[in-house]
């Protein structure tokens, strides 16, 4: 029943063959592929693990930042004299005391100052800071700083930010345009002309916040000309780079050390005022200064998910094959750029991955508003457009009377293809994911057959396994690693800049090191994420570490093994090629009688040749096309996922109970199954929170109304559905041992999946996130009204009228 391709249009993806080595036949791994306990588990269950806020240093001071109470105002004067007089106040600083060089994590738009100079641009913008002998004195000092403001009109509605008469937030960026994108691939207009059916839908996303359990903290210490910063960071490297740049220091004189980090999810990727202000306060006082945000300040600092306004138009064949897509978006960037340029590009770039279509147009404006700046949150830019597209596709499927799962199978991307925006996809088990999700969820028995009020929905997602290009331009490799074997061979330490923020990279990288070396995981130690002692790595973002840091670790482990077997060969008088090592036992391949321990060979190596060490590094190949913004979304490999969920709607209250979620992932070779499924659980949890409850809300003056975990409404253990996390076999040629990402990909399908399940249950479309009971209830009412039912309108009742 498949229709012929219309003339003059490309209808399916170009194919591509990766030049790498094929999948190995023998995958009898000794250490990887096993659910090893986390390397830091004991510290974490005993309370021994120290997070940045747990560190104390002799003579340490406490520091806090004074922030703006207005969304947009001119600073007329700042008077710190009263604050300075308070006993215990050691320093008070404003913009006059700090470098005025603008910074930001995106080099294309450095638009932040350590402290505001002329205007404050959102409620929470940084104005001054204090260092005091204790926390209580800090609050007294902040209260005593007098700032005179002239309140200015503010831009709070992103849809009017570009109006001619809207207040201007940054004079350098007229019409409050922060990022404007127009990308065009193939011929979308022709695709729409030739399509049997074209549909347009509008969707709106929600502003959400990462809300890691650990608040941001940074402690700065100067020793002579060298600055050491302990920070809850996702990337010691970017912190080091930007702190050095701001203060004109050589990178070698800035040491950033990650301690245990209590979750990041994108919110701890860029340095905050805590690092910059702390460094200045520590220098002025000559004492260590610990700076920290409380929960409300975390919400105000934000850098969470952008709210996006998404218009989608798609043309399809009569059989539902997608011919062309036009995505036309606006996103609320907040007061600063943060990582938002990348977010804006990601929003459109990632839409081409899960389905195969060749004609695509993407228009986007990321606008400045007088609200907290938005940045990268798990799934970076992609989850809301994915929600919109999956909802849009279900609308099309319904119009054409095609089963939602079937329309996805017909359009699913195939392996070894190239997307219209020039992403090379090697492994891709999109079809297998959909089929397995269909089978394990019992789709055929449920679709259209569930009792009233119940529904089932499906959606897909895909994500990068590491960004193809770093955030600022540099030719540094993306990851590097060293392994040092102890003198007697009884332990080996992995030194890596990779950053474990809870996802478990320390564990999986040690498993990978042990596998490559022929060693045991239990003997591995790790030193990670300290810019002075560990080799460079870009850190934890864009789901990059298993593939990229892993590739560097594998190379280092291979080098250890090679040297070890050469030594062993000399010891047993055999060429090294005839020896192998596994789990610390060296044996001759053709004579099992000849054995030697890893320890014996490593010790002899040390005695004869010095330290036994391995080194590795990884840089991705050159990726992507030549169009503007082409690097964003490039990756050596992409994960794919399908989710099915079943929901039950309470028609009276509009409440949505999610009963079950089935997630099927294609994430390549798995290193640690237990940790992998735990990533899926966590990603789904976040996706679920964003789908149904979470939203940062503002009052009419741009102040956050719900800056607490309770009112923002993080889901609790009572809110979670049954989760079934499943995998399809997959091998990624570009990754060490065939690995790909998992940690962010599983956030992508969730919102669309729930929306589609509600659509299936009640025939109503909720076109904005979160899918709250109020919205579901209102949509149900509209539907009943449209069906001619007589509905009592409480708002028309006199008792509600003034």
């Amino acid at each position, binding site marked *: 029943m498949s229709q012929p391709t219309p003339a003059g249009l490309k209808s399916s993806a170009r194919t591509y063959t990766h030049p790498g080595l094929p999948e190995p036949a023998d995958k009898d791994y000794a250490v990887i592929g096993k659910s090893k306990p986390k390397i830091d588990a004991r510290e974490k269950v005993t309370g021994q693990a120290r997070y940045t806020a747990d560190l104390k240093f002799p003579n340490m001071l406490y520091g806090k930042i004074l922030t703006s109470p207005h969304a947009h105002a001119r600073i007329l004067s700042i008077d710190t004299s009263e604050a300075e007089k308070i006993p215990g106040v050691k320093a008070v600083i404003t913009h006059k005391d700090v470098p005025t060089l603008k910074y930001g994590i995106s080099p294309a738009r450095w638009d932040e100052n350590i402290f505001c100079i002329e205007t404050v641009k959102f409620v929470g913008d940084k104005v001054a800071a204090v260092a005091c002998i204790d926390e209580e004195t800090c609050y007294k000092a902040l209260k005593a700083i007098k700032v005179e403001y002239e309140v200015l009109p503010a831009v709070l509605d992103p849809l009017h930010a570009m109006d001619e008469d809207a207040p201007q937030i940054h004079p350098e960026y007229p019409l409050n345009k922060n990022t404007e994108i127009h990308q065009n691939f193939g011929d979308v207009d022709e695709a729409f002309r030739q399509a049997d059916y074209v549909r347009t839908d509008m969707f709106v996303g929600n502003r959400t916040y990462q809300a890691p359990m650990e608040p941001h903290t940074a402690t700065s210490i100067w020793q002579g000309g060298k600055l050491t910063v302990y920070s809850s960071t996702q990337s010691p490297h970017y912190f080091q780079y930007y702190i050095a740049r701001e203060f004109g220091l050589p990178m070698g004189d800035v040491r950033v050390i990650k301690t245990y980090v209590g979750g990041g999810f994108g919110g701890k990727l860029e340095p905050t005022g805590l690092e910059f202000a702390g460094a200045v306060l520590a220098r002025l006082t000559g004492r260590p200064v610990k700076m920290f945000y409380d929960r409300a300040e975390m919400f105000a600092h934000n850098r969470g998910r952008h709210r996006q306004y998404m218009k989608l138009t798609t043309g399809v064949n009569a059989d539902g094959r997608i011919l062309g897509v036009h995505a036309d978006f606006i996103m609320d960037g907040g007061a600063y750029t943060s990582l938002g340029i990348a977010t804006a590009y990601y929003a459109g770039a990632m839409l081409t991955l899960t389905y195969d279509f060749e004609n695509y147009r993407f228009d986007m404006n990321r606008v400045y508003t007088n609200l907290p700046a938005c940045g990268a949150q798990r799934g970076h830019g992609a989850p809301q457009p994915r929600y919109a597209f999956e909802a849009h596709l279900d609308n099309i499927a319904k119009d054409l009377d095609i089963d939602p799962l079937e329309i996805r199978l017909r359009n699913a991307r195939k392996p070894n293809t190239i997307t219209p925006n020039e992403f090379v996809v090697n492994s891709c088990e999109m079809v297998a994911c959909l089929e397995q999700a269909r089978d394990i969820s019992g789709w055929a028995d449920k679709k259209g057959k569930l009792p009233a009020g119940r529904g089932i929905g499906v959606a897909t997602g895909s994500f990068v396994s590491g960004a193809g290009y770093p955030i600022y331009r540099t030719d540094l490799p993306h990851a590097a690693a060293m392994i040092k074997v102890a003198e007697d061979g009884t332990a080996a330490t992995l030194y890596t800049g990779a950053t474990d923020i809870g996802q478990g990279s320390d564990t999986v990288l040690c498993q990978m090191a042990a596998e490559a070396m022929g060693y045991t995981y239990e003997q591995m130690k790790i030193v990670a994420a300290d810019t002075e002692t560990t080799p460079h790595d870009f850190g934890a973002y864009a789901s990059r570490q298993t593939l990229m840091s892993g590739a560097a670790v594998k190379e280092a482990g291979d080098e250890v093994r090679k040297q070890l077997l050469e030594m062993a060969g000399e010891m047993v008088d055999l060429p090294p090629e005839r020896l192998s090592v596994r789990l610390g036992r060296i044996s001759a391949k053709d004579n099992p009688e000849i054995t030697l321990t890893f320890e014996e060979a490593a010790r002899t190596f040390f005695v004869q040749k010095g330290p036994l060490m391995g080194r590795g590094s990884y840089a991705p190949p050159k990726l992507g096309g030549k169009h503007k913004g082409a690097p964003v979304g490039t990756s050596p490999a992409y994960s794919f996922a399908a989710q099915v969920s079943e929901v039950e709607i309470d028609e009276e209250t509009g409440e949505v109970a999610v009963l079950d979620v089935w997630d099927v992932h294609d994430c390549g070779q798995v290193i640690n199954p237990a940790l992998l499924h735990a990533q899926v659980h966590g990603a789904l949890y976040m996706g679920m929170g964003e789908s149904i409850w979470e939203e940062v809300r503002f009052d009419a003056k741009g102040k956050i109304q719900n800056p607490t975990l309770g009112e923002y409404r993080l889901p609790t253990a*009572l809110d979670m559905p049954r989760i079934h996390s499943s995998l399809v076999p997959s091998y990624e040629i570009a990754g060490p041992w065939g690995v790909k990402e998992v940690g962010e990909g599983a956030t992508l399908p969730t919102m669309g999946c729930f929306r589609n399940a509600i659509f299936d249950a009640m025939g109503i479309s909720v076109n904005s996130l979160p899918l709250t009971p109020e919205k579901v209830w209102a949509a149900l009412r509209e539907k009943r009204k449209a069906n001619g039912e007589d509905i009592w309108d409480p708002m028309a009742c006199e008792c509600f009228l003034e």
Partner: protein
Amino acid sequence: MQAIADKQGVKRYIISLTVNGDEYSPVIKGNTLLVNLLRDGLDLTGTKKGCELGDCGSCTVLMDGKPVDACLVLALEADGCEIITIEGVAQHGELDRLQRSFIDNAAIQCGYCTPGMILSAKALLARNPHPTEPEVRAAIAGNLCRCTGYVNIVKAVLDAAEVTA
């Protein structure tokens, strides 16, 4: 309770409490929170702070056997009480069965919620050695975790309960 006033006339109190079996008589202010006494005064930083508003449960400790948010308890109120923090759960270097179970069930990611979770779960198992899954979920509903979706945490608590069966 003995009180002394400083030069500004702000009162300090000497309280006595037991923490993980050890007796302490710290001098505190009237507004000192139990969580800050534990973390700053006694250097027991295993008790975490995620909100200081009673929302997250990161600061959960056992006060006379009951789980409390230590950010909502004044140190003064802990006078004469027995407090157990996460540092007091393992005995002589031997992990508690809940701690083991959290490790075995991959119930830990960033670990920031873990101390509070383990103490809430410990209190549950003490009063109800064989909880059902909904009972486990209810017992940890005041402990937020941003990483795990609670899936493996619930499993870990149920598993630990099994061991005592």
